[in-house]
C-alpha cells in the first residue's frame, strides 16, 4: 500500500497524459464520423444504384471485420505496397492512422443508425413539406433532421459509449493512449516496473468519462421529449 502511495503521483501523471490522447482520439473520431456517417447514409440510400451498392459494400466490409484488423491494415498496408511508411514513425503519425481507422469504422456504424433514423420519419412529414412548396434540402434541414436526431439519440449514445472504450484498441499500433500508459508500468517506466495496478486503475477514467456521457445523453433525450 505504501508502495502504491509512493508510485501514485507518477502514475497518475502518466495516465492523465495517456487519457488526453484517448480523449483526443475520441473527439476527432466523433467530429469526423458524425458527418461522414451522414454522407454514407445518403450514399447508401441513393437511387443511383452503383453509388448505393458501393456504400453498402463498404459498410458491410467495415462492419464485418474487427476494428483492430482495420487499424493494422490502415497503418501497415500502405508501407507494404509503397515500401515506405506514409504515417511516419512519430506519435502524430500513429494518431493520424488511428483517427482514419476510427472515423471510417464509426462512420459506417453511424450511417446505419442514421439510415434507420431517416427512414423512421413518417413519409407524411416529407409529403407535408412538399405540398407546402419546400425544397428537398429545406425538408431535410427543417423537418426530417431534428426528428431523425430524436430517433437516433439512444442508439448513438450506445455507440459513443462503446467508442470511449474502443479507443484502447489503438495501442495495437502503439498509440500512447491510457491503456498503453498503464501497461508501461508493467514493463518498466520512470523507475516503476512490475506494477499492474496502474492498468487496473485506468478503469476509473473510463467509468468517469462514460458516466458523464450517460448524464449528458439522458439530458439530451429529456430535451427532445416534446417531439412525439
Amino acid at each position, binding site marked *: 500500500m505504501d508502495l502504491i502511495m509512493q508510485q501514485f503521483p507518477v502514475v497518475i501523471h502518466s495516465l492523465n497524459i495517456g487519457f488526453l490522447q484517448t480523449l483526443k482520439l475520441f473527439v476527432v473520431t466523433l467530429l469526423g464520423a458524425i458527418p461522414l456517417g451522414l454522407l454514407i447514409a445518403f450514399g447508401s440510400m441513393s437511387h443511383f444504384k452503383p453509388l448505393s451498392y458501393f456504400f453498402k459494400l463498404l459498410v458491410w466490409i467495415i462492419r464485418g471485420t474487427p476494428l483492430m484488423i482495420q487499424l493494422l491494415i490502415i497503418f501497415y498496408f500502405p508501407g507494404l505496397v509503397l515500401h515506405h511508411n506514409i504515417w511516419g514513425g512519430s506519435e502524430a503519425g500513429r494518431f493520424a492512422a488511428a483517427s482514419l481507422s476510427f472515423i471510417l469504422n464509426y462512420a459506417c456504424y453511424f450511417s446505419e443508425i442514421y439510415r434507420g433514423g431517416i427512414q423512421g420519419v413518417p413519409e*407524411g412529414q416529407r409529403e407535408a413539406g412538399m405540398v407546402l412548396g419546400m425544397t428537398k434540402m429545406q425538408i431535410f434541414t427543417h423537418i426530417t433532421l431534428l426528428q431523425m436526431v430524436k430517433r437516433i439519440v439512444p442508439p448513438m449514445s450506445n455507440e459513443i459509449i462503446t467508442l470511449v472504450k474502443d479507443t484502447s484498441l489503438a495501442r495495437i499500433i502503439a498509440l500512447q493512449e491510457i491503456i498503453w500508459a498503464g501497461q508501461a508500468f508493467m514493463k518498466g517506466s520512470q523507475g516503476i516496473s512490475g506494477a499492474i495496478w496502474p492498468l487496473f486503475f485506468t478503469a476509473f477514467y473510463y467509468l468517469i468519462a462514460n458516466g458523464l456521457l450517460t448524464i449528458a445523453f439522458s439530458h439530451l433525450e429529456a430535451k427532445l421529449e416534446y417531439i412525439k
Partner: protein
Amino acid sequence: MSFLEVEHIRKSFGKTEVLKDISFSLEKGEVLSIIGSSGSGKTTLLRCLVFLHMADEGVIRINDDVIFDAKDPSTTKESELREKRLNFGMVFQSFNLFPQYTALENVTLAVKLHAKEREDYEKYKANIDEVIDAEGKDLLCRMGLEDRMDNYPSQLSGGQQQRVAIARALAMKPRILFFDEPTSALDPELTFEVLRVLRQLADQHMTMAIVTHEIDFARNVSDKVIFMDQGVIAEYGTPEEVIDNPQNERTKAFLANVAR
C-alpha cells in the same frame, strides 16, 4: 373555361390501373365533394393533383394555364412542380403536423422559407417575419385556436391538430384547397369542429375539393359531388342529383351502406 380543369388523368401502380381516365372541372369558389368506397382511387386522385404522384396521362389546367401535361416533359420536372404545388393546399387525413414545431411555427415555417426567396428579403427581413407571424396568428384565431398557438402538436387533440393543419395550408394562400378525409382520423365528437371550419371556408368561397365520408356534410356544403368507383367517376352532379337521386346502381349501393 373553368378555374380548374382536370382532363383524362390515368395512374397505374405497376399493373394495377388505379385511375382510369378521370376528368372534371371546378369553378372558382366552388366546393366539390368526392365520395366513394375505400380503394376507389380518391386519395390517388388528390395526390396526382398536388404532384405527390405523377399521373401517367392527363392534363391539369388552372385558369387555362397548363400546369401539368404528362406528355410535355417541361411541365413534369420536379423543380417546376414545386412552384406549381403552391397553387394547391393539401390537408391530410393524418394531419402530418411537424412535431418539433409549435402550432404557430407549423403555420409559418413554409411561408417564412418561401419569403426568403424574395429579392427584398434581406432588406425587410424583420418586417416580413413580423407580418407572417401576424397572419399566422390571425389564421389560428379563425380556426378557434387563439389559446393554442404555442402548443406542440402532441399537446393538442386530433381536432385541434387538424385545424392547425388547415391553417398551415391556408397560410400559403393556395388557390385551391384539397382535403383527404379530414375527419376520418378523429373521434366522432371532434369531427364537428373540423367540419365547422370547412363550412366557414365554404361560406368565404374558398375553392375546395374534399374527399369525405360525411354524406350529410357533402350534401349541405358542396356545389358538386363526384362519386368515384374503381378508378372512374361513376356519377357527377349537384348534391341533389348524386346524393338524393343517384342514377348509378353502385352509387345507390354505396349510399345505402354509409352511415347517415
